[in-house]
């Protein structure tokens, strides 16, 4: 589904990604871990087409398309979703209007008709229940004045509604208490299916207690320095990253 080959990316002429290789197939859940500043968010942002990053080498294919040549909205419409590490506030734009615009654009790309207001509300409210969000949030401005946890749940709500083929979650678990963490995990697990793939960027093993990954990768210094199964995450939890990064140095 997603094939990343020898991907290099810079920001302001500083090399951040230095040769990433990764294969993600339908039905799989991958966890990407690694120290602060290792390039995890950069990787996620490059995949969704953030324009500040310059791609200097490499190739990314999504299904049969050359991903790096697609505009951000085309990638979204093709079924790639990123739950942002820092969701943005949009004053004056109600959550429901935002969701409607997003959903109708994505639906149009799938050849589906626009949802009318009643169907839309029904769908949205169902998903809100899943992430235990109060319907009042629909009429508030997008993310404005939301707590950290509420923003993250709002990301998961959008993800559930848009039903992406490939969901990228960038530290969606950071700063959540245990109840909120479970809600987020339940949301992600609900999306899991043989046709979809999920890539979780996380610092903490504890999320992986709830969402069990098929693969765990360690990203450090802009490269994937080790890959394994869920046990790798447990090792990292006990020993930190030092033994890996030092071994390479």
């Amino acid at each position: 589904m997603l094939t990343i080959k020898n991907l290099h990316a810079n920001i302001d002429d500083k090399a951040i990604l230095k040769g990433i290789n990764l294969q993600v197939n339908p039905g799989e859940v991958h966890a990407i871990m690694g120290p602060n500043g290792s390039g995890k968010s950069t990787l996620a942002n490059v995949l969704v087409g953030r324009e500040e990053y310059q791609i200097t080498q490499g190739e990314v294919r999504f299904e049969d398309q050359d991903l790096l040549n697609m505009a951000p909205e085309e990638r979204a419409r093709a079924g790639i979703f990123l739950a942002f590490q820092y969701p943005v506030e949009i004053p004056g734009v109600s959550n429901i209007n935002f969701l409607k615009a997003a959903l109708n654009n994505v639906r149009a790309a799938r050849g589906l008709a626009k949802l009318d207001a009643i169907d839309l509300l029904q769908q949205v409210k169902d998903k809100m229940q899943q992430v235990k969000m109060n319907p009042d949030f629909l009429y508030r401005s997008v993310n404005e004045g939301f707590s950290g946890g509420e923003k993250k749940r709002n990301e998961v709500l959008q993800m559930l509604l848009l039903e992406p083929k490939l969901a990228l979650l960038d530290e969606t678990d950071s700063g959540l208490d245990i109840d909120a963490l479970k809600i987020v995990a339940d949301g992600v697990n609900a999306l899991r299916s043989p046709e979809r793939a999920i890539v979780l960027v996380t610092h903490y093993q504890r999320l992986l207690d709830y969402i069990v990954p098929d693969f765990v990768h360690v990203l450090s210094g802009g490269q994937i320095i080790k890959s394994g199964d869920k046990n790798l995450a447990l090792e990292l939890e006990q020993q930190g990253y030092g033994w890996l990064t030092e071994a390479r140095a």
Partner: protein
Amino acid sequence: MAATQPQLTNLLSQEYQHGFVTDIETDTLPPGLNEEVVRTISAKKNEPEFMLEYRLKAYRHWLTMTPPDWAKLKIEPIDYQAITYYSAPKFKKDAPKSLDEVDPELLRTYEKLGIPLKEQEMLAGIAVDAVFDSVSVATTFKSKLAEKGVIFCSFSEALQEHPELVKKYLGTVVPHTDNFFAALNAAVFSDGSFCYIPKGVRCPMELSTYFRINAKSSGQFERTLIVAEEGSYVSYLEGCTAPMRDENQLHAAVVELIALENAQIKYSTVQNWYPGDKEGRGGIYNFVTKRGICRGKQAKISWTQVETGSAITWKYPSVILEADNTIGEFYSVALTNNLQQADTGTKMIHIGKNTRSTIISKGISAGHGQNSYRGLVKVLKNAQHARNYTQCDSLLLGSRCGAHTFPYIEVKNPTAQIEHEASTSKISEDQLFYCRQRGMGIEDAVSMIVNGFCKEVLKELPMEFAVEAQKLLGISLEGSVG
């Protein structure tokens, strides 16, 4: 946003949508202005003597005045002798008595603009007065309004049917000496709308005037007078468009609102005059004097404006809070794109006790657009416990445009409470990207963010107008981010 450049170029070429010209026979005076022209206009309209005298007084005063130069606007000098001061569609008889007599070509123009004048096709609940170039061509729903005693007609008709009312109120809020453009208007205004709401009547529908400039090198000088008697209520809407022309056209209107005790006037404008092309050729020069007075206690006047058109906008809808406990409000969205310039704001003059005013101004600049807010809050000596709240936000799209804020505050009474908040922000890449990552195209995303920015103002507009205004903001901004 290099990747999206071709897309942007496409969008930039999106043209003004109301730019067509109506081919119609007109009765047009040759260009130029002198006393004879003023007399001719008055004679053509068969006006009462007082009106002619008023016009002449204004004209003579205008000759002594110079155009204002304090606004932050770059304006080519205007040749007032090159302008045509009267242009009217030719009717078979005198004025059309009913819609059946109106030239079908004219009706089609309004239909193209989305303003059907046939009553049965109208949006229920809105009466329209359509002003084409200098004259009012049709006023709908008159009889229904008459049942309630509401007078809603063209200014010319009011001069024939209700001269005493016009005489009593004309020029009492905006005197002919007020400013250069108001004086010019008083001398040569050709038509406009008149509306009178009797005591205790809540006007049963929205009243609306639709202004259209069609004729070449004609100026449009219309005059609107709204009188709300004690305890009455009226909501009034004004819309404007013009064809695309290479030369600039002058629009200098005067609007006077009078609210008596416990009366309420809500005046909304969606101004979409032709803004000129990308190089700044053509477009309407819009110099408008709008002012309301709260003459009786507890009266309330609100101005809501969405200004997206015109090459130049010079406009300060104001409220004189003369009586005690009166309220003035000003909600404004002004958008400038390409080479448009806007200098707009309001004046709130607190005279009575416990008077309150609210000013919410949202300026949006894109392209090379220059957008200035200019507002005066004045509290006079006897205005005990006056209160004003001003919020003035600017949004910049791109780096070649400008936003400027000029607040003037004059307080002569120590009990006054004045609050002023201002902000300038850029539309953020993060916000845009967030929307795009959720599948929205750039133009939809910009339009959504801008509409969000304007929400506090748009929510003041009547429903149908709000939808129109939202679309307009989107269209006016297309291609402006890059």
